[in-house]
């Protein structure tokens, strides 16, 4: 419970931060530091329990479906790392109160407190997923803290985020593998699993993933690049995150998983080699820096390398050494970072080449820095000396052949020589040499020591007593070691004097070489600084970004296009890829063709096939839009023949009517388009033909191998045997449509009706001049041809140009035909249940009437009252649905037909359903004619209606004013009839359709 309190206090700090910041500004650091100390205090009972040999735990379920619990557990590792996080955090907050500018520092304090919460959660987590979440949160907090420092920080923070994100993914993958393999998300249970000893491959894979995660965060080569980048963040952030916390999260992770991996060869090899290489590289880079803070960053990289290498050794002594060096490093490095801030604030620069001689003016700062640098360099009697000795000793035990230990020691010693050198550079370059003293007098020196120096001194000076009384650390380090190696029984004994040992000799060699460096430094620094490594991490990540964009472009270019044919070609390719191999696979096992009452292939099928082939060829080859339309029409009608030959009269009638209507609508549209296809739109013949032939083979082959190779289906038998009994109707296809599968029909009628609404909405969304461009603007405008015609006023001229006299015979015919068609439509509607017909076919006949009337007038007019179509559609859908709801309300199911008798006539509610169908179809057809039928000619005439106007009227009703043109034309005397004499009198009649 104590752990929860700790987290609670930290969460309270997060919550209080806005308030504290508001009232105290940068001084909010004081109460926050106090809260951190309070958090430490609340943790004390748990720490005591750990010292007593226990492991306090806490768990509440979180996502039980995944087995995830909010589980905490404190052990030696947790104690060490949480104390580092809390105490250094408190110190840094105190430091910040002086370091930060006056005024609000909300984002700094807020993210810092969130970070601490996540960090402490991370080290206490006893659930793999919780651990992962805290891990990611520390990454995010780190990212935000870098990002908040303006332009320089933004780029750097992105790189940091990317690298730590990669590590997070590796960790997540590792966690997923562990969870699935061990069946638990509990960290302790998972680490205790025997899979780590029994399955070497699995262990190696997971170990690799975990160490990758650890490497990214603890800045190991090649992921070290983010840390120098992160120096864009302000100094308190670096002192906390980049010395004590975030980077230590990586170390923590490696130690946390040591129980599972410490004996895995991959683990040992990777950690030791990467660690030592990083140690050397970091130290070398540190030496080449002139920015004190960057120098510190590379120094951190180097120090962490040593720790990682030591963890990789995996022995008891090694882990103990790693723990103590972690503590030592956290102390001196956070202090040193803070000292850089002191120098920076005092001089206005961190550049070693610009700093004046400081040690005389700032003796306290010089002293504290000297102690910190000495600790880092490993000078006795400081803690750094003890920890480095331990590291050297531990590395000697490196697994493998005997020479590996020696090699490791030599490498580590080499890195330490460099360490010694850069420590020299920090101290002498920063305080003694004063390379900038004579050059830059513009930087006035304002010693700024106060609170900042005090805060920096605390961790550094803590290293002095701890070095002298190192035995104090024996117990905590033992506990931590035991946590990292559960089966061990460590008894660390830290002391300044171990006797003459290899590590002592190595240390002495380091000191000796270091002395040489001090002596020769004036010559050495410029040489080193001039030879910076040419490639830096920012460039590498920049190149990665560029590479990704370069890689992305082709994928975008190939697959994103405004040209439909490109997309369709891909679709066809996919279809071929699926179907052709599929056919090859299924062909061998294909059963024989079905044998039924008649032969599977009838002679008429062959005729149809040939005619369709001819029409298709013509359709594909012609460049005339009209010819293409006629070929399409031919295909449609020949298909009707085939459908009828297959015994589907309803389908045949529907097909015939639909085909005709479609072709007529196409023709309406074609009057506005160029007469011929642009040759540029013709597909590349070879390529398109190849795809087309392939598709033909695929679809034809699939029909050949999949269809007609079984007897008539059970469902068909059911319909043939029972449909009439169930529905008392003889036309089975019709009752399937309106009863058995009325739901399909409901969907279909909605689609059909709403297609009318669709075109209305589409047309409404387009500007007038795009809908009906003026002849000048219309690229497709074809001027009226020069006609060989006698002059205006002659009967010959009128015979061709007068529309009304030429359509009059048709108007007369329609007077007879329309009633016939209407009656026919009604009959077809009525008989649908028992003979080919029904709502659709009847409606299509009705639509033919609409079409005839629309096309047979002398001028292009809207047909019917303007708002009628949308009403028909809307009410059509409503009637159909309501009929269905009747079934639900008064029978047992939606769309269930209810039978009844009215005056002896058998009635079914499905007929009402058919009414809905009828209305919707008529509505669509009227809208299609009205909206697509306008032509350039109808617009140029006086009183012509534009498409836009028709769309508006279809929605709003007849519009008054200047648009009210067609209605304004002179009223005609009457309609054409058997006795009328309009032609003889020379006056136009009133035409149908209005």
């Amino acid at each position, binding site marked *: 419970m104590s752990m929860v309190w700790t987290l609670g206090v930290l969460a309270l700090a997060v919550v209080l931060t806005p308030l504290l910041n508001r009232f105290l500004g940068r001084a909010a650091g004081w109460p926050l530091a106090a809260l951190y100390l309070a958090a430490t205090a609340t943790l004390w009972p748990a720490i005591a329990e750990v010292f007593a040999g226990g492991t306090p735990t806490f768990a509440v379920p979180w996502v039980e479906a995944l087995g995830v619990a909010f589980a905490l557990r404190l052990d030696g590792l947790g104690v060490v790392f949480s104390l580092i996080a809390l105490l250094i955090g408190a110190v840094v907050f105190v430091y910040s109160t002086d370091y930060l500018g006056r005024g609000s520092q909300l984002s700094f304090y807020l993210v810092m407190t969130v970070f601490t919460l996540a960090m402490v959660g991370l080290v206490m987590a006893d659930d793999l997923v919780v651990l992962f979440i805290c891990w990611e949160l520390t990454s995010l907090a780190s990212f935000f803290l870098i990002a908040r420092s303006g332009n320089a920080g933004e780029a750097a923070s992105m790189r940091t985020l990317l690298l730590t994100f990669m590590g997070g993914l590796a960790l997540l993958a590792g966690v997923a593998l562990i969870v699935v393999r061990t069946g638990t998300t509990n960290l302790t249970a998972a680490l205790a699993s025997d899979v780590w000893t029994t399955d070497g491959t699995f262990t190696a894979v997971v170990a690799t993933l975990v160490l990758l995660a650890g490497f990214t965060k603890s800045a190991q080569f090649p992921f070290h690049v983010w840390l120098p980048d992160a120096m864009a963040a302000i100094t308190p952030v670096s002192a906390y995150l980049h010395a004590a916390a975030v980077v230590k999260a990586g170390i923590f992770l490696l130690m946390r998983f040591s129980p599972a991996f410490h004996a895995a060869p991959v683990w040992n090899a990777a950690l030791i080699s990467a660690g030592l290489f990083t140690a050397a590289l970091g130290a070398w880079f540190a030496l080449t820096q002139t920015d004190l803070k960057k120098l510190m960053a590379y120094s951190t990289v180097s120090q962490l390398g040593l720790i990682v290498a030591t963890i990789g050794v995996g022995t008891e002594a090694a882990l103990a050494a790693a723990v103590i060096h972690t503590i030592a490093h956290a102390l001196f490095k956070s202090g040193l970072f803070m000292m850089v801030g002191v120098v920076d604030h005092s001089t206005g620069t961190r550049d070693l080449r610009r700093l004046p001689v400081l040690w005389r003016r700032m003796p306290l700062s010089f002293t504290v820095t000297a102690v910190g640098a000495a600790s880092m360099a490993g000078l006795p009697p400081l803690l750094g000396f003890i920890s480095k000795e331990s590291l050297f000793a531990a590395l000697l035990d490196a697994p493998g052949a005997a020479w590996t230990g020696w090699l490791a020691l030599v490498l580590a010693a080499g890195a330490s020589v460099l360490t010694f050198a850069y420590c020299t550079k920090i101290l002498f370059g920063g305080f003694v040499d004063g390379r900038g003293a004579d050059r830059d007098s513009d930087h006035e020196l304002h010693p700024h020591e106060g609170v900042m120096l005090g805060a920096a001194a605390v961790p550094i000076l803590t290293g002095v007593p701890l070095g002298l009384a190192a035995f104090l650390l024996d117990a905590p380090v033992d506990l931590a070691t035991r946590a990292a190696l559960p089966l061990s029984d460590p008894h660390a004994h830290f002391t300044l004097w171990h006797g003459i040992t290899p590590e002592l000799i190595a240390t002495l060699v380091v000191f000796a070489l270091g002395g040489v460096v001090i002596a020769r430094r004036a010559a050495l620094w410029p040489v080193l600084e001039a030879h910076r490594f040419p490639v830096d991490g920012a460039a590498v990540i920049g190149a990665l970004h560029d590479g990704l964009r370069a890689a992305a472009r082709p994928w975008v270019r190939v697959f994103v296009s405004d040209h439909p044919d490109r997309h369709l070609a891909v679709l066809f390719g996919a279809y071929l890829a699926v179907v052709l191999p599929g056919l090859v696979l299924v062909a061998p096992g294909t059963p024989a063709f079905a044998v039924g009452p008649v032969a599977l292939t009838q002679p008429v099928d062959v005729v149809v096939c040939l005619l369709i082939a001819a029409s298709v060829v013509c359709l594909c080859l012609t460049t005339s839009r009209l010819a293409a339309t006629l070929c399409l029409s031919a295909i449609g009608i020949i298909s009707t023949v085939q459908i009828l030959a297959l015994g589907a009269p309803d389908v045949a009638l529907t097909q015939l009517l639909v085909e005709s209507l479609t072709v007529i609508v196409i023709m309406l549209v074609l009057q506005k388009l160029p007469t011929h296809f642009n040759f540029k739109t013709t597909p590349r013949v070879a390529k398109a033909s190849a795809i087309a032939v392939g598709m033909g083979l695929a679809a034809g082959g699939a029909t050949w191998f999949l269809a007609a190779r079984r007897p008539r289906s059970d469902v068909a038998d059911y319909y043939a045997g029972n449909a009439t009994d169930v529905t008392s109707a003889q036309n089975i296809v019709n009752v399937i449509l309106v009863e058995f599968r009325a739901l399909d029909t409901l969907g279909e009628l909605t689609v059909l009706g709403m297609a009318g609404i669709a075109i209305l909405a589409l047309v409404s969304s387009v500007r007038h001049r795009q809908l009906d461009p003026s002849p000048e603007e219309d690229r497709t405008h074809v001027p009226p041809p020069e006609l*060989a015609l006698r002059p205006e006023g002659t009967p010959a001229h009128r015979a061709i140009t007068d529309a009304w006299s*030429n359509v009059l015979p*048709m108007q007369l015919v329609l007077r007879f035909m329309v009633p016939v068609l209407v009656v026919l439509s009604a009959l077809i509607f009525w008989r649908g249940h028992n003979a080919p017909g029904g709502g659709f076919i009847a409606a299509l006949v009705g639509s033919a009437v609409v079409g005839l009337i629309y096309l047979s007038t002398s001028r292009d007019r809207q047909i019917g009252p303007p708002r009628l179509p949308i009403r028909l559609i809307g009410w059509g859908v409503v009637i159909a649905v309501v009929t269905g709801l009747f079934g639900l309300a008064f029978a047992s199911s939606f769309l269930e037909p209810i039978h009844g008798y009215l005056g002896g006539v058998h009635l079914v509610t499905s007929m009402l359903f058919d009414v809905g169908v009828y209305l919707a179809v008529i509505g669509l057809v009227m809208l299609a004619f009205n909206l697509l039928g306008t032509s350039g000619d109808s617009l140029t005439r006086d009183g012509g209606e534009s498409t836009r106007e028709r769309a508006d009227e279809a929605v709003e009703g007849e519009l008054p004013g200047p648009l009210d043109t067609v209605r304004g034309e002179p009223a005609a005397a009457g309609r054409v009839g058997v006795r009328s004499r309009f032609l003889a009198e020379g006056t136009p009649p009133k035409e149908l359709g209005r």
Partner: protein
Amino acid sequence: MTGTAFVVLEVLSGVMVVAGALFVLVSAIAMLRQRDAFARINVMSPATGMGLPLIVVAAFVHRVALGTATVTDGLKTVVTVAALLVVSSVATNILARAAYLSGAPVAPETQPQELAEDPRP
């Protein structure tokens, strides 16, 4: 339906369909051979005026022979033939005028051409 009548009607319907089809073929070939759109419209008549009505009537005769014909069928056949003869010709007039209006070229052999030249100069 007696056997003889059946045979007669069946033969009749067979002859009628072949004759009808031939008229359609004549129109089709004429389409290829005529010189302008107006001539082509003109030679549609054998198909719509003779060919199709023959076929439609033959179908009815066939049903009569089989004994499946009904009065409704007869009525529909009449309507169909009427539509093909009357309504279709009215529509053809509209097409012919539209052809002229669309600027379709008139064969130069056309003499006289009184839409272009005044017959009473």
